[in-house]
């Protein structure tokens, strides 16, 4: 998995600082470095081996997964993956196809909405002069420190009161805007010089026009960051869906996996199936994480020069 790690994610060096310092004192390669490497390699094993075990287990049958958890599968058994991918007519007790469809649908809608609405609000909070702006921003900051676990009962109450409990609306609507995203965008817009927008304004462009065709194209780094955050957040979301739905047809990969793992679906340990489903849940975020890291950092350094 980590082999796909892109180019080194070097931090942008502050313009005032000279070349990056070499911390090691010259002429002392010694045992310290060997120790450092040994430590890093051991810890890296602790971090990577579980994923190896997970992948390997998904290619085993149940007895083999229990008998030989540490090794590569021998023989390779595709039963778990056939069930996950719905080959052999699928499996009604573990409808991973439905879960995947729900996850993709919800993540797409939530990510698109968040990127647009968070930017919109962030832009207004950064640029526009209107009464109540300071109060709104203070509220956004306050909202960010509200812990998610305290919102389970509130969310359940509001969706039942609105009559949308156990619907896609209940799953999606509360996630459309998130305060942290608004904050990130506001901070970013604060770093862009106003002069360009003022030129456009004098040319007679309206506020939305300026936002859409002048500001957003300059905001790629922040927009990518926000896209990644929103995708990751909504793809991995669990507790919100837990309290706003109850029918199996609304399960996402994450809530479906949770019900599978906590033993609500079928008996037996079924570890190969669980490992495969967990892997499927991890892959999209992993791909995003590894492939965007480079762009992410490059964008970040561009933003850094401006800041």
């Amino acid at each position, binding site marked *: 998995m980590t082999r796909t790690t892109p180019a080194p*994610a070097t931090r942008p060096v502050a313009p005032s600082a000279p070349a990056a310092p070499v911390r090691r004192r010259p002429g002392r390669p010694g045992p310290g470095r060997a120790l450092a490497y040994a430590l890093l390699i051991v810890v890296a094993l602790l971090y990577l081996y579980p994923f190896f075990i997970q992948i390997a287990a998904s290619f085993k049958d149940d007895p083999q997964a229990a008998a030989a958890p540490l090794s590569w599968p021998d023989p390779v058994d595709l039963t778990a993956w056939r069930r996950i991918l719905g080959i052999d007519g699928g499996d009604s007790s573990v409808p991973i196809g439905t879960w995947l469809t729900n996850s993709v649908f919800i993540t797409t809608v939530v990510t698109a909405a968040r990127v647009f609405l968070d930017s919109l609000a962030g832009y*207004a909070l950064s640029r*526009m002069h*209107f009464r109540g702006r300071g109060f709104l921003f203070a509220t956004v900051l306050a909202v960010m420190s*509200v812990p998610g676990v305290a919102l389970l009962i509130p969310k359940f109450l509001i969706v039942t009161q609105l009559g949308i409990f156990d619907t896609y609306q209940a799953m999606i609507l509360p996630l459309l805007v998130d305060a*942290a995203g608004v904050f990130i965008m506001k901070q970013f817009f604060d770093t862009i010089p106003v002069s360009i927008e003022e030129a456009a304004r004098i040319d007679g462009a309206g506020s939305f026009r300026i936002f859409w065709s002048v500001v957003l194209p300059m905001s790629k780094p922040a927009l990518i960051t926000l896209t990644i955050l929103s995708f990751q957040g909504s793809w991995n979301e669990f*507790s919100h869906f837990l309290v706003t739905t109850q029918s199996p047809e609304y399960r996402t990969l994450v809530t479906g996996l949770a019900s599978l793992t906590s033993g609500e679906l079928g008996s037996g*340990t079924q570890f190969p199936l669980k490992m495969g489903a967990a892997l499927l849940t991890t892959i999209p975020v992993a791909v995003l994480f590894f492939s965007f890291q480079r762009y992410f950092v490059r964008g970040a350094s561009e933003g850094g020069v401006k800041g």
Partner: protein
Amino acid sequence: MARKRTGTGIYGKQGITGWLFTAPMIIVLGLFLFVPILMALYVSMTDWNGNGSPFTGGNAGFVGLENYTSLFTEEGLTRRTFMQSLGNTFYYVLLVVPLQTASALLLALVVNSNIRGKSFFRTAFYFPAVTSSIAISTVFLFLFSNTGAVNRFLGLVGIDGPQWFSDSRGTLHLLLGAVGVPDDPSWAQGEIFGRSLWEWLSGPSVALCVIVVLAVWTTTGTFMLLFLAALQDLPVEVDEAAALDGVSAWQKFRLITLPMLKPALFLVTTLGLIGTWQVFDQIYVMGKGAPAGTTMTPAFLSYATSFRSLDYGSGAAMAFIVFLIIIVLTFLQRRLLAEDREPRRRRRGVSTAPVAATTAAAGRGSDLVGAAPQTGGERR
């Protein structure tokens, strides 16, 4: 155009536009955050059992603060379980926060030294933090299963591993037993909030220790990134001066690096404190509080009390107590951090924003904090 400038300047129409731009945010946050919190606050003062609407038709009787006070004063199962969940969290915090802080700092120092493959290690350590907590918990269930990888490894060195997830024995009890303290001794019979002193002294159960390992494993990478950002912010001159003065590596660490990392250390510990009070997903997957309630956390108990036992009033009261604890921790952190940052130089000042973003993100669950440090830490 010219006329507009005479009024409130070129910003003339911005009053309405500003509200229009922020309207979606106001509606979503208002409708799905503020209003429901007020609703829950009301429900926490009722005996609503989930039938009908708690706000109409006498479905819920108003009981005032009883749901709150009874958690501390009324003998019974609810108080016992709530107190047990607080005890569990106490031990959980006591283990997780120092372990994650120390290991993150150590890894950051090593990764920041002059070594090859920096980005590889950084990515490897950070990756678990961006993945789904449910998926990671599933993997840990397998790793720590009776015939799982961990027990295999222990078997290799001749240790017969425990049945991790069904072992409710407290580790402190085991430790006390090993030094000859008898089980449930007479000096530890006094009751505090419905649990005997001996029960309070159980230490984390074997099962809870697995969740401690899971927490440290997943959060270390994130905090390592925070430390790395702070380390790279340290002024080069000090480093060079130290090299010229010929101080040893340990002296440099203790007298220079550590004091200068104080804000980062502080940030990491408080983020850790906040995060440890929010454990929910892991508990849901890894046994829902079992064995014998030793992995129960207040956050999960609030959910279970409401949605399983249908005692929404009591569940909501617990949620608000957790809320209060986290808010206090957050504000404490922000205030102390602000004080600490005040006299710092320009470079520090700039980084307040990402720090705040990270803090906030952490408040909203471990998933988001995953990517946040990158956002803030790297953009500058």
